[in-house]
Structure formats: C-alpha cells, structure tokens
C-alpha cells in the first residue's frame, strides 16, 4: 500500500517536473508582501526569506506534500521557527543580532540542473545580546556566507556555511545552527541524536543537550506520518547537539566549536539536509545510508531488523554485518556475528531486511553493524556503528544501578579539528614586554590589570570572560594567531579555565608554552574549585582541584629571597577571607615551590613543567567582606600587592 502511495505521489511530482523542466529558482513577493527566494526541484520546494536571516520559511518534500515549516510560524520573530537559522552561542537566543536581519544575496545558479543562492551577512560581534555594549573581537566583522544548493533529481539539498575573515585578528565563533520545523500537527515529532550511550531520543528518556554525541548527524521524524528530516554535519567541529522542548521537540540545533578562522583563510562547513520517508526513527546516518535498526524479540528469538534509505551519495550495493554484543551486565562480555544482509542500491523508499540471532542474549544489548558499501565506480568503503538496546533491561537505559555509570560506552571517535602549527622559527618575543591577560570575572577586585600596567614598558591586551564555559557569553579576545601569540612575553589567566579558549585554543597555547611562553594562572571559583579539564594543557598546572574554604587567615611564610618579592615590603602581610585548599598532583616532573602561604594553604606557587618554562600560580580569592573582618585588611588592598603581582608576571616572563 505504501508503495502504491509513493508511486502515485511520484507521478504527481514527475508531472510537475515536466512542466518546469528542471530545477527552478526565482525571487518573488509572497502573499504577505515579503521578498523571498523560491527554489524548486522535482523533489522539493522551499522558500528562503532574506529579510529574516535567509531562513527557510517553507519546505515541502514533494512526495509528502507536507510543508514542515509553516506550522512553526517562521515569520514570527518571537518564538517562530524556520530552517537554517544563524545564531551564535555567545548571544542570548532572544536577543540575537542575526535574528530578523536582512541578508544580501545573489542567485548564482539558475538551473536546470542546479539552482543556488548565496546569502551573506557580517556580525557586529555583540556578546550577551544585540546592542549589549560589549563586542568580541573573535566575532566582530566576521562574514557569514550561506550557500543553498538544490540539484535536480536529488532528494536532498546542500547548505554550506562559509566564514570569511577580512580582519587581522583570528575569529572563533560558536556558530549555532538552529532549525525549527514541525512535521505532524497532531502528534509530537520525535528527535534522534547519536551519543556514546545510545540514541538520545525525545520525547522519552533523552536529554535536550547532547554533549556525548558520537557522530555528526541529527534527525527529526514523525512516527505517525513516517516522514523525517536528517541533518548530516561535520563531526569534528560540533560542540554539542540540542533539541528544545523534551516533550514536544521543537527544534534541531547544534553548536559548532573550534572553527578557527584566520585572516584571509575562509573556512567552510557543509550540512546535507535529507528528507526521509518510511522511517519511524533514525538510528544512524552516513553519507551513504540512513538506517533504522530495531532489535525484535518474538517467540523467544532475537531478530535485528534494518530499514535503510538513501543518503546523499549514490551506492550500488550495501552489505550489513550485524554483531550482537551481549552479557553486558556480566563478565565476560560476549559478541556474536549474525548473517550478512545485502541490499542492492538505495533510494528514498526504505529497504528492509533482518538477521536472526540463534543464541540466547538478554537485554541490554549492543548491536554493532559493519556496513560494506560498494560505490557506483566499484570501489568499496566501510562504515561501522553501534546501537544500544535497553529492551527489557529493568533500568530502561544505558546506565547501571548507581544511575551514573553507563552499561557500555559506544565508540566515540576523537574529534579532529584543524589546528594550526607554528613554524619552527617562531619564538617568544622577549625584546618587548607584551602581556595578554584573559581575565575571568572578579579579576577586577584583585586589580590585576592595574598591577600589570606598572611594569615598565608593558603593553597589556585583555580578553574578558566569565571564566567558565557558559552560554550567552563569550571571550572578547584571544591570540589564536601564532604571530600575535608569540609576541606576548607572558599570558595571564585569572579565574578562567583554559577551556574557554576552546580545544583549538588550548592546543595552540601548548605550542606557546612549550617554547617558553610565560604563564601566570590565577585561581578562583572557575578554576581549581572544580575538577581539572581533560585537555593536555591542564598538565601544565601542578594542581587539579583546590576546593574553596571560608577562612580568614593571614598570608605568611614568604620565600623572601625569591625574585617575586624583590622590593616588596613583607613586614605586614595581609589577609584573605577565603582560601583554596590546594593539593599538588602526584608524579609531577618537578616539585612546585610554594612562595607564599595563606594560613596553611599555598597562595603563590612556582612550577616548572619543562626546563625553562615558568608557570606561576596565584591562589587569591577576592571573596568576603572587609567590614566583617576589622583589622584584617584583604590582600588585594595591601599596599604591596600590585608590586608583587607585577613581579610575578615579570618572573613568569623571564624578566629578569
């Protein structure tokens, strides 16, 4: 029956295609008087509205004849939907500068084989909200060029986002792709996202945020209508996947990360948008196929049923080899390979096949599928994916009884974004005294900027950030370019974790540290109060974590002959009202030296992870009220404080 319907619909759009003769593009004024770009092929029809950020305001996959965007009221800028909406994570969604912005555009291909339109805009670069008063150099004047391409005869479309930086400073936007559509008005759509604990599925047990994604796709399916849309994107640059509204998922979103855009070096990322039919869920998606995988227990037997439709690359044949991984709650884990399944070619209409497991395997299970794909030119490629199946498992999810530990983590390949490498001759500039400070919040109380500016001949540049990775805010500056980075004699981070420079920034910074760049790292609730980060750069710190304790204690035990105390009057040491209870990591390459204490806790520490490399740790916390501690002035009000900080920075920078 389904096949009959499909053929009927196919004949409808085939007839239409004859009328139009190929892909079609036109600028039209719609019924509301708005200027839109109409793009049509034999498979789909869509309208994009330059006046609201070139958002897709209508999208019809012809075989379904269903506009999946209209219900979301895309022209309503207060909560309305639409596909391919640009945002940046550094700005509150409600007050995005790109929301409702006009995009210039040019139609670059007019058919009949292919139609294409290119939209372009430029970010002002606000942090927090449009017109907030705070501009980030990492966003400012960044061009976003969006190219939408439809090809006659292909049931998907291409969306390319290119970032162009014509400014001298490197850019690093947390670009946020926001799609909002609704397939079925009468029942909630379902969303499926891949993760290392299995498919994150909503409505259901899934979460809105998916940080543990393990592939680069996100899908929305209406199980009632058996229609869906799958987005395939670049796995290496995803920060996380997101769907708004757990009960009635409203959006399909993801945030990009590590998209470093250097001057005159544009970077492009591509999204394939693939409508699907006949599937009730999506368990995996690649460039070659989109799969629904359903373990079925019937009459005491386990069968693994596959339903596959085409993706954007044509294939001649696909062979699936399922492996059932079981006994996951016991030891040893067992795995059994099932008979191969072969499918000839793939199209929009799903092909189904199943394999039976002859043995006994209790839930939960992992179905590991190897797919051998024969391409039209005869070459073969291989893909592998895993699905966690909770089945009758009493906890119903990939979790053990502690409700924290997964039963089994699925494969998650490391992300591999492009990280520039400095040329061999780049060295830290120690002729000048340039300092870059990345100041997490509360640094102002410690007067660090004022202190650094007392260094003779110093040039201080600053980036501001709350200090922990957080939405609606972002770093205002960071020297991602090696030319700029190595021009600094020292880098100061205070109450700011390395992670806010993102993985690419941390990797770049390692290169700087390894070549002797000075580092002053200040404590605070954002840094040592939590647990240390995962990136290798954290190995350059001698402390993983140092919880904060409330205690009014005096600074003491200065190593008076150390250069940082040169010229510092240590007669009346000040107080602090909170301390970091710091413990050094074990097996450090060199022993950290405590240069000043607060009570019994370290306050200033020198550490040399590599010979010649100085890392100075300052564990001052600005919290507490001096009025509650009469006669015990805080360290940041101490007359010698700024001199001490200046010395600390100079020492880290090998001066002398």
């Amino acid at each position, binding site marked *: 029956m389904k096949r009959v319907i499909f053929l009927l619909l196919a004949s409808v759009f085939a007839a239409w295609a004859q009328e139009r003769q190929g892909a079609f593009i036109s600028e039209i004024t719609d019924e509301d*008087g708005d200027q839109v770009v109409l793009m049509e092929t034999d498979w789909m029809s869509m309208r994009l509205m330059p006046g609201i950020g070139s958002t897709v305001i209508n999208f019809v996959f012809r075989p379904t004849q269903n506009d999946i965007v209209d219900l979301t009221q895309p*022209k309503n800028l207060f909560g309305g939907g639409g596909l391919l909406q640009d945002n940046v994570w550094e700005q509150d969604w409600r007050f995005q500068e790109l929301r409702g912005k006009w995009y210039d555009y040019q139609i670059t291909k007019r058919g009949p084989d292919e139609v294409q339109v290119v939209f372009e805009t430029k970010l002002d670069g606000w942090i927090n909200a449009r017109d907030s008063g705070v501009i980030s150099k990492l966003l400012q004047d960044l061009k976003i060029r969006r190219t939408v391409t439809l090809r006659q005869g292909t049931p998907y479309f291409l969306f390319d986002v290119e970032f162009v930086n014509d400014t001298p400073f490197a850019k690093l936007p947390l670009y946020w792709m926001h799609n909002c559509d609704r397939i079925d008005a009468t029942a909630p759509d379902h969303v499926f996202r891949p993760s290392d604990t299995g498919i994150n599925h909503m409505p259901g047990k899934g979460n809105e945020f998916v940080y543990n994604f393990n592939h680069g796709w996100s899908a929305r399916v209406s199980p009632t209508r058996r229609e869906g849309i799958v987005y395939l994107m670049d796995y290496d640059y995803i920060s996380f996947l997101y769907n708004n509204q757990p009960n009635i998922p409203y959006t399909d979103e993801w945030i990009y990360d590590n998209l470093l855009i250097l001057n005159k070096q544009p970077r492009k990322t591509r999204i394939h948008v693939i409508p699907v039919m006949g599937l009730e869920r999506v368990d995996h998606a690649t460039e070659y196929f989109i799969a629904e995988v359903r373990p079925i227990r019937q009459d005491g037997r386990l069968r693994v049923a596959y339903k596959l439709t085409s993706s954007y690359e044509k294939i001649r044949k696909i062979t699936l080899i399922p492996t059932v991984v079981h006994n996951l709650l016991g030891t040893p884990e067992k795995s059994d390979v099932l008979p191969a399944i072969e499918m000839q070619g793939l199209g929009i209409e799903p092909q189904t096949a199943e394999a039976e497991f002859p043995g006994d395997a209790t839930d939960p299970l992992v179905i590991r599928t190897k797919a051998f794909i024969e391409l039209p030119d005869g070459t073969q490629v291989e893909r592998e994916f895993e699905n966690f199946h909770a089945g009758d498992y009493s906890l119903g999810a990939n979790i053990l009884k502690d409700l924290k530990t997964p039963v089994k983590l699925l494969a998650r390949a490391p992300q591999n974004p492009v990280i520039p490498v400095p040329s061999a001759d780049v060295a830290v500039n120690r002729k000048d005294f340039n300092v870059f400070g990345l100041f997490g919040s509360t640094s102002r109380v410690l007067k660090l900027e004022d202190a650094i500016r007392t260094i003779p001949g110093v040039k201080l540049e600053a980036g501001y950030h709350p200090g922990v990775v957080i939405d609606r805010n972002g770093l205002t500056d960071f020297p991602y370019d090696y030319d700029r980075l190595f021009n600094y004699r020292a880098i100061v981070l205070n109450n700011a974790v390395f992670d806010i420079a993102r993985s690419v920034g941390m990797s770049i910074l390692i290169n700087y540290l390894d070549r002797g760049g000075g580092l002053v790292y200040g404590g605070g609730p954002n840094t040592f109060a939590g647990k240390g980060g995962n990136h290798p750069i954290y190995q350059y710190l001698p402390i993983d974590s140092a919880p904060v304790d409330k205690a009014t204690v005096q600074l003491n035990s200065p190593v008076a002959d150390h250069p940082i105390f040169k010229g510092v009057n240590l007669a009346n040491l000040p107080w602090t009202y909170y301390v970091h209870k710091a413990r050094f990591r074990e097996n450090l390459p060199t022993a950290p030296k405590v240069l000043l204490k607060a009570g019994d806790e370290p306050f200033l520490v020198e550490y040399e992870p590599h010979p010649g490399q100085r890392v100075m740790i300052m564990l001052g916390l600005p*919290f507490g009220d001096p009025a509650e501690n009469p006669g015990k002035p805080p360290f940041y009000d101490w007359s010698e404080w700024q001199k001490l900080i200046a010395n600390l920075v100079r020492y880290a920078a090998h001066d002398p």
Partner: protein
Amino acid sequence: MLVDAPPRSSIPPLPVKFSWLLALLLSTAVLSAAPPAPKPPPSTPVPKPPQEKFAWPGWTVPPAPLKAGGDASIATDADAQSKHPSKDEDGKDIVENAALQMRVNRRDIVRGVVPVATTPVVEWPGIVPGVYRITARVKYSGDSQCIGTPIVLSVSGIIGERQETVDEAFYGFDIGEPEAYAEIAFLYEVDPTLTKRLPARHPRHSRHNSDFMGEAYPGYVNAANAANAAAGVAKLPAVKPPYGIQIQLSLPRTVYNVASGMPPNSLRSVSVDWIRCERVTPSPGLAVRYVRPLKHWLRPGEGQSFDAAVENFSSEARTRNLVLVLEHGCGETQELAKQSITLAPGESKVLKFPWATQANTPQFGWEVRAEIREGDKVETSARDFFSVHPRAYVVQVAGGNHRRLDPFREKESPANLMEVFAATPGDCAQVMPKTDAWVCGMSAIWQSFPVVRATTAYNREIGVATHMYLFAGGTGDAVMDMHIRRPDWLGGHPNATDQFYYLRAAADEALQKHDFTKGGFEMPKIPHVEVGLNHWFPELMDQITRESVEFTKKTGYEGIRFDVGIFAPNRVVSILGQKLPFNDADRMRHAAENFEKFKDALRHENPNFEFGANMDSWAYLENVGVRGVKPPDPETYPEFVAFAKAGGMFMDEGTMSAPLLDHYMNRFEDALWSMVQKREMARRFGGVYQLFSPHRDGSGHFAHDDIYWTTMIIAAGCTYVGSFTAAPYSLDSPGEFITRFSEYFRSLNLRPLPNAEELIHIDSPSVVWFADTASFEDLAGKRRYVIPMINPPVQERLRRNKSNELPPTIDDPFRIEVKIPEGFHKGRAWMLTWEPRVAAVSLETTVAAGQLRVNFPGLKLFRTLVMEFEP
C-alpha cells in the same frame, strides 16, 4: 468642488446591522445651509460667505490625476448617485451615474497606505465653525465577515504650524454586504484653532519622561531643540497653505503578520460615490461636550471629581439643567448635582463637581453621566467610567483601545495601573539608590527620584496606581559587588565579565556628572547582568525590606510586581562550595515567611501597598489549567498561598506563547477553560490572575486573536497585562466595559457555577460558549449568576485564522432558561453588553417549572446574562 447635494431623503437607509451608527448620527439634526449670499456686482469681487454644507462626487476627488490603466478610474455605476458628464456612442453630451473606483493593488497595499479619495482643502474662512457630519457613500468588493482591510475616513485640520488628523476605520462587517453602497460617517468639530477637542491624559512612565522633564527638573531645556534654535533651525517645518480641513478616504497598509495576528488584505476594489460634509447641531438646547472623572480609579473614602463641559451650539442664548448622575451595578443611580445653566450663543463652560466617597461607597465600576435636561427630557449627555476599589489589581485595566471617534474629546485610555520596569539600581541586590539618579539594573536605562516622583504623583492625581518592578534576584554592578562581599547570598555566579562591570560603572559615573537642566541623559549601551539570590539569610531579607520601604516612601510607588519568583532560598551549598546551615526541606516554608515579613513591613508604612508577581517562586499555577493534569494541593505551595492571601496578583507570563501550536492554551476552548481554572485557584485565596500578551505584544491589535484574547480574559474574570483591544460591533470598548462592570467578573466572591451546562439552557441558533465562565456569588439575601456568553471563533486555534474571519452573528433574540437555585423563587435579569454600547439592559423574566426564563436580545461576539435570584 462645491456641488448641490441631493435632498436628504434620497440618502438610502443604512442596513439594520448598521442601525447604531444611524441612531448616533440622526441624534443630531442637519442645519440648513446658510442662505445664499447676494449676488455681487460683476466688477467687485466679494468673498463667498462661509458655508455649512459641502459635497463632492467621488469621481471629482481622486487622490492623484487619473491615468489610463491605473488602479483608479471613473466607473459607470447605475447604483451611484453622482452624475458624471460623458458622451454617448454618437458623441453627444450625456450625464451618467458614475463613481470613483479604486482597484486594490495587492502589491501596493502590503507596502503602505493606499489613498482612495482626497477632497480639496476647505479653507477656514469658507466654512462655518461647528459640528459636522463627515459622510462618504462607498461600496466595496471583497470579503465581508472578516476584519481584513478597512476603509478609513479621515479629516485633517490644517493650520500654519501643524496638521491634526482624526480618522475612523470601517470594516466590511461595519459597512454591510459587498457590492452595495452604504454610508460611512462620523461627527467632526470644525475648529480653526485646533484646540477645542479635549486632549487625552496619558499615565506617566518614568522612562518616557520627555513630556515632564521640565516638571522634574525646573530649568530643563530640551537639548536638541535648543541646539536647533541656536543653529537657527526653525522649530517645526511650517505647513504649506491652504489652511482648512481636508477629507480623505484611504486603505491602510494591510499585511498579514503572524506575530500580531493582523490580517491580510480583504478588498478587491472600493467605489466612492460621494463625500459630504454637513453641519449639524448636537442638541436643540445646550450640548454636553464631555464629562471626565479626575480619577480612573480610587479607593473608597478618597475624593473624586468630575469635569463637565457644556456648549451652546445654537444661535440663541439657552438655559437648561445640567445634571450629574452616578450609576453603578445594574442601573443603580444617584444624582450627584443638578444646576441650571445659561449660555450665550457659542459660549462654553467647564464645571467641576467634587464627590467625596465613603468607606462604604459601593465598589467596582461606576458610570458618571452629565445630562442636559429640558424638564425631564434628556437632550444630550456624555458619560465616562471609573473604578472604586481598595485594590488596584482587582480592577486593573492596563489599557483599552477603541474604534469610534468622539468629536469633543480624544478618547482616553482606561488604564488605571502603570508598572515601571527596571525601577531600581540592582533589584534585590540594591533596591535603594545611593544617588539622586541611577542606572537601572534590569535594563539599560536611567531613572531619578525627581522623574519617578513626577510620575507617581501625576498618576495618583489621575487615579492611576504606579507600581514598581522588582526582580527577586540581583542585577547590575550591585549584584556583582554582592557576589564578592556576600557570595553565600547568591544563587549562582554572575554570567558576566569584569568588562560588564566597568561599562556599567562608567555609565553611572557619566550619569552622576550629568546636568539635567541641560537635557536628558543619553544612555550608553551597557550589558545586562542578573543573578538569582539565595533568600535564606535574615540579613539579606532585612536589607531588601529596609531598602524597599525607604525606596517606595521616597518614590511614591504603591505596589511591587516581582519577577522570577519572590523570596525563595535556592541552595544549601554556597556557590563557593560551603555547606550552609539550612535545610533544603524548609525552602518553601521559608520563602512564605520571607514574603509575609516583607509584606507586613511594607504595609506597616502603607496599608494599601499591593503585590504582584509573575508567579510565585515555584510557579504553582503552571500546574493548574492544563487538561488532564490534576494540580497538587495548593497548600503544599505555602508561598503561593501566602502571596494570594495578601491579595497578590499572579502574572502568567508563560501565556505569551499561547499562539504557538504546542502551547496548552493554543486552542481557544482550552485557553478559556485554563483561564477560569487559574483565576479560580488564585481567587480561592484572595489573589488575582493576570494573563500575559500573545507573543509579548500587548498593543491590543484590532485582530481576531487579540479580540478573542481580550474577550476571554474579560469573560473569565481575569486581568490583563496589555491593552484590551477594541471590539467589532461596538461604539465603546471592552476596556470601558470591564471598568464599568468589573463587579460581575472580578468580584473575589464569584465562584464557578457547578454543573452550569445542566442549570443553564441556551436556545441559541448556534453554539455559544458559556459553561466554563459561568459563575455565582451570594449577596445579602440574593444569589447572583453571571453567565458570560461568547460567540465562538470559527477556527479552533490561535493564529490559525489568517483572514481574521469572524463568526456569523446571532442577530435574533433567543431564549435562555436557568434553573432557579434551591431556596429562591423569583429573579431579575440583565444583559451586560458592549454591543453596541456599554450598558446594563434589564430583561423581562418569567418563571416556569423552576426556571427563570429570558428572551436574550442576540449575540454578535460577547454579551453577559446576569440573573439575581431572590427568595
């Protein structure tokens, strides 16, 4: 062009549905035209005497010269009354009936106003000052029973310095069937000074202060104007002559807007037969120009006063009685004053009537009426409405739009409560400013004590309560400072950087240096910081309470509306990781106690102080009014109960998303039911439930969804954060209606009428919604039923009626039978309505078989049946 007008008898009657307009217009008499001036001798040109009657055939007044193939044309039209010279097939001169026809160009109307007809300017010396009826005979083709595109009739008065335009929009449902001519009209006072019309008063908001900066800062000079003057730039560009009045017909820009729900164009063409301007006299004796209460709202025991303006429009001195009548309930009237007044021809007078209310003055809505009587006959009258109640939130109206013009006064918004957003420098981190002017924490704006006091004082004078907004957390640099000094008091670390702090501090520094006598302060762009507070600590609550008392005393605010909860503790481990000496299980109880103490302190200073919140800290009401969800026992939410018992207003901000498909109030029927459930839950403890505006737009658009949103809110006895929309089929407005009849919808003693569907039988020709909103109240010896009836929308959901189609009206009377409650044997009934005027109409009742029966006089969109049963 002045042409001979056809005799009055030739004007065809208006359709029945338009009879209210006919009644209004025929309540005045057309004056005969001035006698023709004697013929001047041929050699001495004598200016024409001023005229009182003007008419223009439509084909003579196109807005621009006609072009072949253009949208405007002269169309032969047998139904037109205007004659157009033409030639027959043989080239002979003939006269045929013709009209100006404008084809509505869809591309043009989505972009801007489409002018249809424009008369020449009738210069001031050429027209006798007085009241005129401005009429156009028009027909349209297009959709009728929808809002769509109106035909706008407007008059501009032009003098040397300025131009003032008044207009009224006429929709298909106003005009009648398509393709049939009808007249559209309004009364307009020709006044060469453009000063006679009473301007509307506008409640003040301290942020929009340019109109009263001079009052707040004596010596204030508008810097821009001063700079222009210094540069020799003229104050205002002069309006070019000729000066006089000009009449225009136009179509407003009409484009579908999914955010506001405004409809797309509904017209294909408009034909204009003629436009007329004819002098009328509003009364055979004296005419009441207006009566205006000083206060929109007052508490029992406070003083009210009324201004009544009377004018003699006739050519002889007249003496009449001016009577001031006060009415409340269903027709309970009292004469406040009666005095004889004599006015010379053309003379006018404004009289002031004080009224001292008492503690026992009946509460809720009142009508004040000024009547000119000749003996017992009322010759003319004017009226207005106001509220008497100890609590502003109970009778709150945030605004109300209207459609009809009053020739003598700009209609005033019935708003009686103004909320000032972002009132404080740091919200609960710093309520009391340390300086005379301050940068607000919640928004990039500044405020100052002089400006705020000028706001609250003026509003109090005109009976508008001024409440302040207060975020329950902290904002701005104040909360960043608190984060350092008292980290335990914060619910989280600020999502802010030091740069935020520096920019805000710089803005404040610049503000402190600013000299307000030299102009307003231009606020720089500054970032926003807000953090929840951890309201466990008595010292924190003491600080907030002390500063709130001080601040409200110094500013004159009479209420606080909280945002994002009230005073809830939110963590027992500090943001720096220390275990705090509190028990998580005590949070809700502690929050309730916090509020109780705060309330007592504020009311110790001002017993009338009021409280609102966009929900309690746990948003209890979000559990209420969701189909299929049984709400938890409200007593398990002690802060909700404490707040409601204090008369708190619960603003349901989440209802802004009702136009979205998946919102639980997206279906109109669900929305109405939900409103009633939440209102009832709040009211059970003495609280007030307030709806938010769709998509955060509280403008009160004349759009289908806003009309139903307004109607449902009123019917359900709720209040509204935005302006009530105007209503179709109404000369008045829903805002005026609920001001006048709030007692029947918002009395805190009204309770849902159980089994309303069983007790009430409505024999209407189509379905009417009534059961959810039906309520009852026991009064002294009586039981009152209030049965609001809504003619339901044709579409099920908000934002699914793009064309703004209205339901078919029920024009014929229908029977309603209501079971008489046990212990009662007889009853009286009234219809409360805004269709076409705000009125309580007594209905004849009969008792049969234990039922009280009325014949209800039809229903266009919304009317209410009130029955009072007696033993």
